């Protein structure tokens, strides 16, 4: 029974709870047991099993009184970038190792109001800066998937690696992630799950530890598109505490999942057919296009001529904003303090010891591109290029409803494979960053495996605030792809052995 409960999707579990097949307590217990047996994956920075059990009893009591919320009794994990009241929130950094927020983020508050139950805080790249989870101060998450080509360990992608890993390993039914340049979609692709980045402004950023404020956006990671639609419906909405959240009604996202995409026009951007893109990914992309045609959609070749410049523009804009956002960590108001001879000395020691190498590198780049004499050449230039990238999308969206692309140029890679080469690591975001720069919604849907047995996803990018079309098309692809593979449970009851062997 326990194993069956962890296999359910959110929508299945909600039906089971409502018809009394099992209680919220049983559902949460099954997931706590899965969490306890998955220590080897290093998915969590903080586990909150006791709180989850206490909440589950309240869920059962609400359901008995017919007062259950939309996600009542559903066990989820929260990326440790969302402030959770009285529960340590680290951002994967030594800087915030002991930080206990006195307030709750808007998105998590909405989830708890709908009855969702938190199993714990998921591991992530430090301050969400990374594409492999290797920059976490708490050690990397290991991808639940292993290839059939040897006993290698793979990264789960990043930065929401713990979130994607937990959903993939059947430890949680869903997770919150955040996406700045691909941090929901790329780990979803690497772990064989669904990851949705909504339009910038769709979800409140209040209480999410800031990385790059003009790009950061929260979204769900789940095992099905329907579950993503259910979670987004709870997470989305205007919040007066975030002036960039947008005051638009939140539609019934599950209502969009009609399965009918006949007549929709879906663009295939020529520029995403990168030279050197693996045959497997190309073939899967083609297959995705065939599926869309099969379902009655009209596929149209389109051009997004500035795509090539998205990554370099992103790696100016994001570090610039990060350097500004992370200036607040100075050892004074919260977080780590390393004592020094003077205030200046204290600042420097605190920041040098509190931040890891990748975060320091990005702060340095960001400080440089914003500094006097270089601002126009780098930052202003990048913001102009961002305008061009957004115009590319606006142009194609006058003739198509959405776009289909691969999510990432590779499947999951091995630990250490890219960590010594920042640019090679950055390249992994090549297909996700353009939509981020343009603020557009994008989803990754798992559709197949490499010959080595690792999952791959396809990405659907939509018009601003048209998450409904994105979900509708992703749902249709999901139905035709019939992706039912799952990772072997090699991790069960293995002890957490800290950092993985390469």
């Amino acid at each position, binding site marked *: 029974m326990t194993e069956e409960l962890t296999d359910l999707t959110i929508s299945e579990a909600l039906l089971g709870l409502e018809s009394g097949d099992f209680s919220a307590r049983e559902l949460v217990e099954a997931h706590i047991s899965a969490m306890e047996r998955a220590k080897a994956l290093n998915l969590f920075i903080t586990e909150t099993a006791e709180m989850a059990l206490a909440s589950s009893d309240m869920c059962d009591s609400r359901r008995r009184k017919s007062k259950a919320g939309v996600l009542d009794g559903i066990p989820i994990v929260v990326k440790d970038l969302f402030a959770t009241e009285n529960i340590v929130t680290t951002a994967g950094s030594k800087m915030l190792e002991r930080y206990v927020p006195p307030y709750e983020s808007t998105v998590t508050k909405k989830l708890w109001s709908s009855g969702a139950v938190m199993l714990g805080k998921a591991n992530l790249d430090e301050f969400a800066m990374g594409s492999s989870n290797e920059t976490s101060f708490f050690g990397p998450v290991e991808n639940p998937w292993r290839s059939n080509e040897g006993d290698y360990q793979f990264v789960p992608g990043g930065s929401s690696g713990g979130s994607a890993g937990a959903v993939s390993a059947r430890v949680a039914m869903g997770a919150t992630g955040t996406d700045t340049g691909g941090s929901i979609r790329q780990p979803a692709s690497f772990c064989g799950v669904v990851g949705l980045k909504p339009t910038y402004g769709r979800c409140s950023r209040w209480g999410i530890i800031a990385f790059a404020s003009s790009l950061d956006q929260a979204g769900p990671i789940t095992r099905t598109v329907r579950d993503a639609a259910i979670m987004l419906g709870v997470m989305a909405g205007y919040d007066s505490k975030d002036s960039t959240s947008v005051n638009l009604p939140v539609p019934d996202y599950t209502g969009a999942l009609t399965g009918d995409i006949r007549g929709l026009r879906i663009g295939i951007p020529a520029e995403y057919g990168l030279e050197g893109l693996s045959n497997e990914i190309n073939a899967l992309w083609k297959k995705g296009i065939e599926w869309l045609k099969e379902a009655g959609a009209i596929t149209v070749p389109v051009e997004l001529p500035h795509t090539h410049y998205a990554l370099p523009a992103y790696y100016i804009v994001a570090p610039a904003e990060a350097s500004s956002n992370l200036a607040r960590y100075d050892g004074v108001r919260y977080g780590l303090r390393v004592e020094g001879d003077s205030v200046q000395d204290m600042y420097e020691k605190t*920041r*040098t010891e509190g931040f890891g190498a990748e975060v320091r590198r990005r702060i340095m780049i960001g400080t440089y591109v914003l500094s006097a004499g270089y601002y126009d050449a780098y930052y202003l230039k990048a913001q102009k290029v961002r305008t061009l990238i957004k115009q590319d999308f606006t142009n194609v969206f006058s003739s198509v409803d959405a776009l289909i692309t691969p999510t990432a140029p590779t499947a999951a890679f091995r630990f250490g494979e890219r960590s010594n080469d920042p640019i090679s690591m950055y390249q992994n975001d090549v297909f996700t960053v353009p939509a981020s720069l343009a603020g557009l919604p994008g989803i990754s849907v798992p559709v197949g495996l490499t010959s080595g047995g690792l999952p791959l996803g396809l990405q659907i990018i939509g018009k601003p605030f048209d998450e409904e079309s994105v979900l509708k098309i992703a749902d249709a692809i999901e139905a035709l792809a019939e992706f039912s593979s799952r990772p072997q449970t090699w991790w069960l009851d293995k002890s957490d052995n800290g950092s993985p062997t390469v």
Partner: protein
Amino acid sequence: MALDIATVRRVAALCRIRVSDTDLSTMEAELNEILHWVEQLTELDTDDVLPMTRVVDVDLPMRDDVVSDGDCADKILVNAPASAQGFFSVPKVIE
């Protein structure tokens, strides 16, 4: 626009991060590699392009200029590494 060691030192000072002498040249090389890579943006003519200031086309909301929160000094100080009498405390800044 290549960075030299002196610039790396200056940038590090600006962002209050200490780079040891032994790490300076590694940092110089890493930053130069990244900066060289982003310089491909110069291939684009952007003279007549406006820089992006907001990614979605909505007007920022306005609200009345009134206090909406406060009286929570204890909460604000709860995570302070050092505080005294309702204030954050830092090493002496004036001799």
